[in-house]
């Protein structure tokens, strides 16, 4: 079991580990850039308005999966991201960083395992972006006390989050990945190899 876990980690190359680290770092940068907006939305609109930008926080792990296309890519990227957030301080607490990373990874990894890491169409990405939302929403509802709100507010919040996940995570990741696919930056990764084989 331990050996299997070890080889699972070692199947990812050093370049891919660095890519995952840098994506986690860029997520922190983007989070800090939109942090004032996020706090403003939370303070003035509670869970509903905050949910409009939830998708942005989920992009980095899905983008890692889109570029690397190997088991564990999203899991490790979200894990590195959570660790990084704890080290530099996270506005919603350490538990939220850990729980969010776990909830996202638990959804993304099995879906792409079922697709054998080969299907990354628009439909798949929009679907994954949407499916990543509900589990974390339920966990967050208990963590931040959203359960005290009226059911109709919770339902609206969930719908807004799903739309945000679909557009700001699924669609944005697909768009970003496709923009990068032809560039030299992703040449050593699966997405770069795929792009080259399509051109040939």
């Amino acid at each position: 079991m331990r050996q299997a876990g070890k080889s699972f980690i070692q199947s990812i190359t050093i370049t891919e580990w660095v890519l995952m680290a840098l994506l986690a770092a860029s997520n922190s940068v983007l989070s800090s850039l939109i942090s004032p907006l996020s706090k403003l939305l939370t303070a003035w609109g509670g869970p509903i308005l905050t949910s409009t930008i939830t998708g942005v926080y989920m992009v980095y792990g899905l983008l890692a999966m889109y570029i690397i296309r190997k088991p564990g890519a999203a899991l490790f990227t979200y894990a590195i991201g959570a660790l990084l957030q704890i080290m530099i301080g996270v506005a919603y607490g350490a538990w939220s960083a850990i729980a969010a990373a776990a909830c996202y990874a638990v959804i993304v990894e099995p879906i792409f395992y079922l697709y054998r890491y080969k299907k990354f169409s628009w439909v798949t990405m929009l679907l994954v972006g949407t499916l990543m939302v509900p589990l974390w929403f339920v966990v967050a509802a208990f963590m931040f006390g959203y359960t005290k709100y009226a059911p109709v507010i919770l339902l609206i919040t969930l719908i807004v989050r799903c739309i945000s996940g679909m557009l700001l995570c699924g669609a944005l990741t697909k768009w970003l990945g496709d923009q990068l696919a032809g560039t030299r930056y992703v040449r050593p990764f699966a997405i770069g190899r795929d792009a080259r084989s399509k051109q040939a």
Partner: protein
Amino acid sequence: MANTGKNGTRLRAWLHTIDPLTKGIWLLSTGLAVMMTMSLAGQAAWFGSVLLLGWTGGDWSSRQWKLLAIWLLSFGIPLIVFQWLVLPGETPILASLTGKLLTEEALRDSVSLTLRSMTLMASSIVYATTTEPRDVVAALTGRLRVPDRIAYAAAIALRFVPLLLAEAEQMRHAQRLRRMAPARGIGERLRSARQLLLAVTQTALRHVHVVSTSMEAKRFGQGGQRTQWRKLPIPPLGIGLAAVSIGTAATSLYWL
């Protein structure tokens, strides 16, 4: 709370001398306790305890305290008002003026939930400002046996946050200069945000090759067990803090 010793040398406040693991136990126990507690008194006590820890052990300057206060108030007060308006309740306050809109129960729940959010935020800031990131990496690899690749990937990510942040600021500035005017309207702002996002991602990817080449040149991950130059002792004070945190959290979960 900047302390100085007899010969004028700067003394580190007590939270800085504790290892990241036992402090991490405090952080997670506090988080768990506030998330499981709904009582207003319990939330207020936990929030007070975090501020007390930050005050006695955080070594924060008055400017840092001011920033924290502004941050907490600008977030907390509007959130209390918002939640007071939307949370359900039975006993009206100022019924002649507001009818059943403002209730006692909603106010209590609103303050309680806001204190919960503020405690989570403040405890995370206390941890981050009193902990050396390289100590976290040393604790992960040395004590928790986390694989080197994960721990060092987190260290790399941490190293690049300020660099990428500075580059993102530069790009934003360049975007503004190129247009000679700030972005107006939703369409223009979205286009600008999209360009910035792509540029930040491309910059991060550009660094990937430089870092991974140098790591491969140093044969990272190729040899056997990595040796640790930095030893991380767990002081009795840390063990005490962890034990008190677990005990208080358990008591809080039982009583509050």
